[in-house]
């Protein structure tokens, strides 16, 4: 412990030192302060009662049975993407390409549904869809990983650029598959036959992504914490040189981890197209590949904490939508409130680290 204090990755040590109840206390204070600031801004700019606005926030996420389901469904997808990015992040491989990896997974799913729908048995179709989606996402993660492993290229840039390539490929195929001609809309795929639609669990439309997310969360937790792979990822993340010194093949670890990362993003794409939207658009993932970066960071790469951070983001998003509907306010206003709350929550993380650092040095003195 003492040695690592002098290493550049200072904040990780500090976080461990602070008692959990203090850390969560600071976070709670941050949320309360954020709500007060939001309240003041709401009253000053719109004249509305902030308590009513907060009520609408909760209403938006939990106002009806359907809303609760949608909230958890959306949360599941975001959670899966966040979990997908996490092993790469733990390895200090900045995978900003979640958006593209999800999109190609979605595209592969849609391609199978359109070209193979009704031609082969549904079970077989769904198996092919799943394999294609995971493989497509994996390839999208693999390409920047190879570049990184072989030539040490900057993965932040390459994964980011892969997003735009994915978006353009999806745009291209949207035009190929559009119905009617020129509309730039694929519409619901196999609407009459439901071929390739992922099955509903226990008669619920919303359950499948939730179950998948639960399984992925548990698996990822075990994988990172208890498996040899997980340990290797942690070592490469701490110091690539150390990893090399102890005989780890860092290139192989980078590639393996990014294939996993991409494949899990592809899984999210599969769920988005096969399970939820049943169509393909360039915006089907609505930027969640980027939101997931925040979810993963906020949770300090801990899969279990990510359940709560992804919930927080989705809760804010759903609440924001409700505010604009209920009070006739522009969506931008709700986005401002969300922004303020996130600013305080992210800001307090820095505050937590800063405090510990002060306390530690005084102890040593």
């Amino acid at each position: 412990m003492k040695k690592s204090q002098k290493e550049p990755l200072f904040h990780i040590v500090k976080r461990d030192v602070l008692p959990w109840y203090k850390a969560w206390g600071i976070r709670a204070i941050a949320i309360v302060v954020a709500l007060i600031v939001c309240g003041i801004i709401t009253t000053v700019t719109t004249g509305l009662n902030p308590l009513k606005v907060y009520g609408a926030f909760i209403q938006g996420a939990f106002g009806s049975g359907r809303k609760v389901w949608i909230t958890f469904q959306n949360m599941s997808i975001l959670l899966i993407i966040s979990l997908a990015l996490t092993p790469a992040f733990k390895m200090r491989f900045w995978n900003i390409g979640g958006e593209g990896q999800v999109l190609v997974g979605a595209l592969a799913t849609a391609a199978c549904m359109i070209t193979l729908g009704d031609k082969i048995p549904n079970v077989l179709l769904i198996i092919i869809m799943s394999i294609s989606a995971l493989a497509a996402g994996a390839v999208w993660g693999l390409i920047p990983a190879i570049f990184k492993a072989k030539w040490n290229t900057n993965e932040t840039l390459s994964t980011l650029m892969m997003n735009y390539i994915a978006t353009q490929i999806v745009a291209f195929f949207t035009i190929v598959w559009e119905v009617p001609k020129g509309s730039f809309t694929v519409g619901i795929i196999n609407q009459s036959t439901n071929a390739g639609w992922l099955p509903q669990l226990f008669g619920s439309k919303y359950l499948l992504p939730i179950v998948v997310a639960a399984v992925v969360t548990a698996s990822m937790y075990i994988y990172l914490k208890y498996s040899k792979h997980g340990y290797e990822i942690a070592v490469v993340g701490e110091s690539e040189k150390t990893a090399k010194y102890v005989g780890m093949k860092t290139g192989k670890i980078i590639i393996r981890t990014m294939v996993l990362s991409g494949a899990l993003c592809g899984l999210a794409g599969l769920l988005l197209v096969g399970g939820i939207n049943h169509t393909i658009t360039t915006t089907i993932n609505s930027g969640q590949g980027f939101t997931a970066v925040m979810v993963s960071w906020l949770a300090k790469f801990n899969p279990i904490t990510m359940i709560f951070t992804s919930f927080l983001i989705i809760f804010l998003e759903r609440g924001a939508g409700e505010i604009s509907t209920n009070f006739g306010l522009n969506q931008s206003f709700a986005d401002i409130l969300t922004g303020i709350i996130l600013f305080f929550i992210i800001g307090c993380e820095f505050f937590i680290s800063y405090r510990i650092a002060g306390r530690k040095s005084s102890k040593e003195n």
Partner: protein
Amino acid sequence: MKKLISAVLAFLMVFSLAACTAGGNGNNNNAANGNKVKAGFIFLHDENSTYDLNFINAAKEACEKLGVEYVLKTNIPEGQECYEAACELADAGCNIVFADSFGHEDYLIEAAKEYKNVEFCHATGTKAHTENLPNYHNAFASIYEGRYLAGIAAGMKLNEMIDNGEITPEQAKIGYVGAYTYAEVISGYTSFFLGARSECPTATMEVTFTGSWYDETAEKEGAVKLINNGCVLISQHADSMGAPTACENNNVPDVSYNGSTESVAPNTFIVSSRINWVPYFELIIKSVQNGEKIPTDYTGTIETGSVVLTDLGKIAPAAGTQEKMDAVKAEIQAGTRKIFDTSTFTVNGEKVTSYMADVDTDAAYEGDHEVIANGAFNESADGFRSAPYFDLRIDGITLLDESY
């Protein structure tokens, strides 16, 4: 491990809460009794889009006029979110649910199958006449008539510029910023062009596509590109203020769409055609109030007050424009002037005598209805569908980029 177990338990608890509350989500959808109407509206964007603003204003006006409760949902994407929004509105007691964007259609149909006691109405859609759902309806308007009248104003402006010696007759080139090579856009720019050419016979047109219904930057750049290509008048079928702003900056006269853009282009704004959705909204609300059937396909016209033109701009329009537009409007209403009269245009140098249009939407884009009758292309006609299907590429119009 303890942490894991507690987290899984927490997840389960939250989840079972979801399951419990979901139980109450039952048959909330038979609110049609008592003729009390609550209308729910789904919009793709918000009031910053001229297209959606036009719908939002009409929804408020119609509902307030008839004293009907209403809910507006803005920024609903063309995906499962539309289905969820429609179901949420139905759950909340709406017995009319309306959506304004083409890509909403399939998701609205899914909701219509589920909530049989709620009327689902959709603007610009193409599937109501083939879906056979009694509670699902399409609506549009014969906006090509409005476009044609706006074209008259454009043609007169071109004539004025020729008379003033600003341009030669050969230089009377119009630029048009379109969204996609979609029938609705093609029908729009062709009718606009035919209107302009009926006044200014030497007029030609160039069309550029942005690949988006709402992309202010692309629309602005598209307009600038056309102006640099030598276009002396600009019109548009895309929903932002991009093109009108570009015109104002370059002092090029502009005919806009969806409503007046005079506020951003006071010196260059000529006129704008738009669909007034108030008559349709009143119709569907009254139909539900009186227990009457809503038409499967509704095409608003000049007569119904659905196709309207804004007031002319104060500076740009040529003298006598209003009088001329009124005269042509009377001819259209009397049936003596047909917009897509086959004697007024050619395709590949030849007159069109027969054309099978893709009226029943299918993935192969197969033509299925003969739409040439009595010397004209029958756009948005009775028995076909309300959304436009005119997609002929007529001579005199050059498409700069067809990638969309």
